């Protein structure tokens, strides 16, 4: 039996800082929350009176909406700060913006920022609970958790599964959170992508992870393929010759799907570039769990908000 008392974090900054057991507690706690979604009233009074500020320095649809729905289904109040229309435009610093939210007694600050480590700076400077909703190339812990939850739901386990993370590993915080979580739960992780998009010396941090530049070899007998988005906003033009070539070498299509196991799961964190990293027939195939990922994301974020709310006085990062 997992015991929620063993989860004593105040912030969720990354899966790097969680133990295997703590990750499992979050996954288990998400299950009863998911069960709520089948009711007509999908809301519970758990966080009545608490407030959650969503501070997004980068565009987002699903993560922000998912956090907002998660908070609302827990009966917390939410406020959205979109940087384009806020005082950040007048030059306010990150810490000052966060301190303003703290002064308004926001119990949680969910932050997405283009700099790696921005959530850590907030955790050290304000008293609210900080949840990392994606920081630079560093981590996107709730995405990692929802990916793992989805895999475990379908496969019944994580240990010893062959999980291929495919695409732009270098710029991907989703990949890093998956790596931390999946390796802690003892999956066999294979990284695959163009050599220019695999971070150099990554094997020093994750010694048990395999790197394979050839897609066909990488996905042979795979149980799970997590396909990453090609991040055009991160100046990729110099890192591979052309989008067409990327698609030819690393795009997931119906033919390649046959190389993996018959019941391989296809994950994608979204938004998809259909026809580039994934073809439409794969994205909409029976192997695809992309829409389930979105549903599970709300349950995972409810579990995270709930568990952190038990520890608002803890000082652990």
């Amino acid at each position, binding site marked *: *039996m*997992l*015991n*929620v*008392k063993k989860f004593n974090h105040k912030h969720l900054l990354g899966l790097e800082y969680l133990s295997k057991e703590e990750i499992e*507690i979050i996954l*288990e*706690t998400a*299950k*009863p929350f998911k*069960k*709520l979604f089948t*009711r007509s*009233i999908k*809301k*519970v*009074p*758990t*966080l009545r009176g608490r407030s959650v500020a969503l501070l997004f320095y980068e565009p987002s649809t699903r993560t922000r909406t998912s956090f907002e729905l998660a908070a609302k289904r*827990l009966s917390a109040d939410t406020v959205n700060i979109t940087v384009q229309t806020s005082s950040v435009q007048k030059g306010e610093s990150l810490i000052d913006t966060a301190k303003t939210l703290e002064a308004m007694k926001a119990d949680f600050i969910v932050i997405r920022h283009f700099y790696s480590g921005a959530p850590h700076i907030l955790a050290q400077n304000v008293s609210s609970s900080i949840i990392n909703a994606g920081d630079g190339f560093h981590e996107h812990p709730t995405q990692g958790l929802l990916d793992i939850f989805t895999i475990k739901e379908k496969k019944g386990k994580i240990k010893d599964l062959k999980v291929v993370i495919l695409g732009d590993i270098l710029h991907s915080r989703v990949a890093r959170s998956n790596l931390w979580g999946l390796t802690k739960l003892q999956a066999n992780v294979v990284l695959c992508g163009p050599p220019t998009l695999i971070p150099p010396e990554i094997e020093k941090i994750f010694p048990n992870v395999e790197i394979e530049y050839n897609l066909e070899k990488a996905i042979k007998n795979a149980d799970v393929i997590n396909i990453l988005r090609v991040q055009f906003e991160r100046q990729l033009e110099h890192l591979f010759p052309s989008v067409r070539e990327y698609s030819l070498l690393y795009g997931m299509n119906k033919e390649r799907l046959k190389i993996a196991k018959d019941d391989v799961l296809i994950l994608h964190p979204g938004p998809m570039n259909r026809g580039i990293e994934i073809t439409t027939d794969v994205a909409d195939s029976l192997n695809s769990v992309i829409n389930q990922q979105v549903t599970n994301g709300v349950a995972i974020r409810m579990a995270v908000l*709930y568990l952190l*709310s*038990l*520890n*608002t006085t803890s000082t652990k990062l």
Partner: protein
Amino acid sequence: MKVILNEKDIKKIISNLVKKIIKKYKNLNKFGIIGIHTNGVYLAKRIAEKIEKSKKKKIDIGFLDITFYRDDIGYRQNIQSPKETEINFDLNNKDILLVDDVIYTGRTIRAAIEQILEIGRPKSISVAVLIDRGLRELPIYAEFVGKKIKTKPNQQVEILLREANLEGDKVIIYSK
């Protein structure tokens, strides 16, 4: 530590509770039992089984976890790992019997009632418990009580049931 009820006592108490329950609920087509995790679930199953045996009729049964409805979240008292609420029958217009092991402050029952009313609109809700230890903090009333005992707040009443306890059924009381 003192044993206040043994296996035999508990068996007798449950039989008496079942008799009273059958006497009250004449129309079992409009009746359902909901057990509160974890001991309430075991007791609800036992009660439902006995009614089914005596009346030769299938009884609707559900399980309720009240963790998300607690009023002490964040104060870190007695936080338990949430379990799944499973009520797979229609609550509307039914007479619902809520089952738990002990009634004490009344806060658990309050939370359970709140949750049930969000799932549906039963005709009525009543409460059955093995032990009523008094010391209510809310105006909550249990209609079916196995045994009433006088306790102090610094005492702990623990119900050990064979479903989770190797030594069988037992109710003990001790000072914290």
